[in-house]
């Protein structure tokens, strides 16, 4: 289950507008992705909401720091 979610997260990050080439694992820190900024972070959160049909609160925007945090959040729904 988590493996599938990880693959879907990777798929989002490798496509536009993120286009990441980084090696992404569960332990990856989001802010360490190449050329990452607050705008990309918001766009990523929006994509996660759409893809996984979860609601991400404004507090979670700042508290979700790793890919693992995202997987945990999605598994909670």
């Amino acid at each position, binding site marked *: 289950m988590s493996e599938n979610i990880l693959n879907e997260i990777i798929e989002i990050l490798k496509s536009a507008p993120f286009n990441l080439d980084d090696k992404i694992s569960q332990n990856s820190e989001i802010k360490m992705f190449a050329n990452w900024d*607050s705008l990309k972070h918001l*766009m990523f959160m*929006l994509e996660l*909401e*759409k893809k996984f049909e979860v609601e991400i*609160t*404004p507090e979670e925007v700042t508290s979700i720091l790793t890919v693992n945090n995202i997987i945990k959040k999605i598994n909670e729904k």
Partner: protein
Amino acid sequence: MTDKEIDRTEINMKLDHISYAVRSTDESIELFSAIYPIVATYKYLEKNQNVFITYLSNKKDNHKIELVEPAGHPSPVDNMLKSQDTVLYHVCYRVEDFNKAIRYFKNRGFFMITTPFETSIEKGIWACHFFNPKSGIIEITGENKDE
């Protein structure tokens, strides 16, 4: 009726202000005075956001210009002002039913980026911000009928 079916007219949304993030309120007032010569509010401290708010208006238009200057750091406009003195920040709509408007925007793909808060400048009026890459940031303000 589902939230998706809420009609825009039900929200009764009106343009309230256009907001700029600014490094220097005074310098921006000077520049904008050619179009908006009335300083309706000057550097009001909005504690919830850690910013100074200034409103400019004129006698002809119903909307205002909002100038948002950091009152300290961190503030929500810090990143925007890293490389520019003034940046278009958001467009704000006044709505009749704040909570209904939140559902309206969320269901249309807008992502909520601030937790709704009661503004310091207008008692009983709540505000929150939304983001979508195709619209930028928008703010809604209005009476929170559930409070």
